[in-house]
């Protein structure tokens, strides 16, 4: 599974990032609570380059360099093919950040650990970036 | 092979049907007497040789055919034509070349009102109309591209154009043989008189083609200066409106 970003219809509005931030770190999706009470961090970057924009989200690579480089085993792939970080195991060495060729994995705001797209695997429904994209520019590709 | 039809034997629709069904690349029709829509919508490179007087909309919406008319055309000759060539050995009625986008129209004698109205150029296509005689009022109205040449060869004493020439025109060129009374030309039009033949380079092939079609001597065509009419302001309506959300 991965999210496909279609820059033909990406508006660069950044709502994907806002909802992403509010969905993680225990904010449970409330945008106002997340941004007024805390410092939520989006898992995916928004790239704006030469009049085009797209979301720089995880490709959930088959031979994920991040998983193989992770020194703690915190980066794992579940049986749906989702590459995720076990926050308990991550020590924040950022080796994964260093080897992700897409620049997707980012340090947390306090640099204490790495954060990345987990396709909102804790939610029953589609990833929040996909469900909140106002223009259908994001799609969840199901095949593993 | 050339198919020959005698229009006397056909009514309006049967003639069109018979022509459409003919596989021949050349079709000759004799004794025409007002039959309309000949060559209308044709997208091919057939040749049509017509004798007599055709009805309205000769070659309308066509793209490609060559039409030779020995006789007069009526209204709408070459209406919305995209490509091809129509040569009229006679006169044509109103709105010849209406919204013509490509191809050429050679008329030996006069043309009626609104000749070349809304003609427009597109990519490599630039429509052309050459008239040997005079044209009526509103020549080149709304013209948006292409070339119209009026030679005024038959009535040397009169203006080759009627009033309101180039009204609402916003692109293209109109060439007139001789010097033209300025009160016939719309406000937004600039008239330049070219005395030297060298300045006629761009229209010279068209003049030569006209002379060849109708057996004119070039020295007669070139015995006067030419006046070129072009647009001063291409966006004449740009200050007309005030946007208002209401």
């Amino acid at each position, binding site marked *: 599974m991965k999210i496909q970003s279609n820059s033909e219809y990406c508006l660069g509005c950044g709502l994907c990032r806002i909802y992403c931030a509010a969905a993680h770190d225990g904010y449970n999706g409330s945008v106002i609570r997340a*941004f007024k009470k805390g410092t939520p961090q989006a898992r995916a970057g928004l790239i704006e380059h030469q009049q085009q924009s797209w979301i720089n989200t995880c490709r959930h690579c088959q031979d994920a360099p991040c998983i193989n480089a992770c020194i703690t085993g915190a980066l794992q792939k579940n049986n749906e093919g989702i590459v995720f970080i076990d926050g308990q195991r991550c020590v924040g060495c950022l080796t994964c950040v260093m080897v992700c060729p897409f620049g997707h994995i980012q340090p947390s705001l306090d640099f204490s650990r790495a954060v990345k797209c987990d396709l909102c695997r804790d939610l029953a429904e589609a990833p929040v970036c996909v469900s909140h994209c106002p223009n*259908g520019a994001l799609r969840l590709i199901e095949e593993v | 092979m050339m198919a020959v039809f005698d229009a006397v034997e056909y009514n309006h629709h049967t003639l069109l049907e018979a022509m459409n069904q003919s596989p021949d690349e050349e079709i000759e029709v004799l004794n025409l007497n007002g039959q309309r829509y000949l060559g209308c919508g044709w997208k091919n490179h057939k040749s049509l040789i017509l004798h007599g007087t055709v009805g309205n909309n000769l070659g309308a919406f066509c793209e490609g055919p060559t039409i030779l008319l020995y006789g007069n055309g009526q209204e709408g000759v070459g209406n919305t034509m995209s490509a091809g060539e129509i040569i009229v050995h006679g006169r044509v009625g109103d709105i010849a070349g209406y919204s013509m986008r490509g191809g050429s129209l050679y008329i030996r004698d006069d043309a009626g009102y609104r000749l070349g109205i809304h003609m*427009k150029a597109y990519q490599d296509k630039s429509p052309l109309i050459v008239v040997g005689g005079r044209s009526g009022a509103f020549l080149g109205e709304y013209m*948006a591209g292409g070339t119209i040449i009026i030679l005024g060869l038959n009535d040397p004493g009169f203006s080759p154009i009627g009033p309101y020439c180039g009204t609402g025109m*916003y692109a293209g060129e109109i060439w007139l043989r001789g010097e033209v009374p300025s009160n016939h030309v719309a406000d937004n039009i600039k008239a330049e008189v070219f005395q030297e033949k060298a300045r006629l380079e761009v229209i010279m092939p068209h003049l030569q083609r006209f002379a060849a079609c109708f057996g004119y001597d070039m020295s007669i065509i070139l015995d006067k200066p030419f006046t070129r009419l072009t647009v001063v302001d291409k966006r004449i309506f*740009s200050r007309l409106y005030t946007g208002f959300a209401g």
Partner: protein
Amino acid sequence: MSLSMLTPAFTVERNQDRCIGCGVCVKQCGNSVHHKDEDGFMWVIDKNCVGCHRCAVLCPTQALAIKEFPAALRPNSYWSTSSLREIYAQAETGGVLLTGMGNPRPFRSYFDHLLLNASQVTNPSIDPLREPMELGTYLGSQVSSLGEREKPLLKLDMPIMFSAMSYGAVSLNVQKSLARAAREKGTFWNTGEGGLHSDLQEYAASTIVQVASGRFGVNPDYLNQAAAVEIKIGQGAKPGIGGHLPGEKVSADVARTRMIPAWSDAISPAPHHDVYSIEDLAQLIETLKVATNFEKPISVKVAAVHNISAIASGMVRAGADIVAIDGFRGATGAAPMRIRDNIGIPIEIAIAQVDQRMRDEGIRDQASLVAAGGIRNSADVVKILALGADAVYIGTAALIALGCHLCHTCFTGRCNWGIATTEAQLSKRLNPELGAVRAANLLQAWEHEIKEMMGGMGINAVDSLRGNRLMLKGIGLEQHELDLLGITAAGY
């Protein structure tokens, strides 16, 4: 002129308890209303706001409220605020007021004074969820005699089509959305007078192509690949005047589709200069029939004007297979305001009158009647069919389904919803995949509702609804209005 007396039309209120400073509004406003400083301070320029609601809809915290600017002029029921504003604007510029979309004035809507019937006891109503219900219909001449060439017909799965909206006036993504929805729902969309874009040729079989006075994009291929050809004489928003797509909107792609040079004005003259009479119309209709080998129905679209029934009768006699009439609520990308707001008549009356006239003259079966201009919902559709139309065109409703918020500034070409624009960065805001779903959903919803209303009347085929004025009663109408509509008052 330095001093403008025009106060802003709207004011943007930002609820600081909700605003998270994300800047979505800044990025989404194509009119430069919202601004964010380097230090995060957010501010607005009210006068740029057109009330399109793009920012308010996309704001993730609903922090924005767009309100009418509270410039309380002394109330005057004759000299309304808008009257004053119009004069201020003209005094500043000396220009003809140019505006967009349809007539907003509070003229009587006859739709709102019509009530539908339902069966009780004396005949059964029909449950459309369980019993067959036919919404399909055919448009074109139903008259034929032995030995005559077969007349071409348009088969519609439902009596609703999308109105003519040209590429240039609307974005290509609007046309893509409508074309896909039309194909999916078995109906038709209309190119308007802007040509058929190469991306849309796959939808040609669901396409009605227009031939207007400017003849943009018209060539033999254009005519022959479509399902039908429509001659546009006039449109409801601007009867009697031509079209004018300003050069700014004629992008390279628009130019290619219209077959004109890029960035040049695209002007459609008020009349077709080959049509000065009914006889001339007959000739243009026949020319197009010849050019399409008599295989396409030819529609003629006119604006609903004072003597519409006589005009329509002439159009039928001129050989039109479909007579499309556009009422005075019809919309447009740009029209002089005085024309839009003061010319034409309501579609309800026009259809009732034309249908009656055609019946009286015994020519009702020679052509189908399509109603356009201000159809807002499925009840309007049912009512106009009962007044005599075979089908309707919807334009404004379709655009609203795609996101239009009726801000009336289509003429700027800066539509924040990606609808009335040809700018790439704005056009992309309308994803045609989503647009097609929304437009098809609208048709599907109306289809269900029409079936419900028909079922209630005990009618199981839309052909039995057409001209069935017994199903209509007037409420709050004067006798002469009831007479014009050919109906009786509620209670009779």
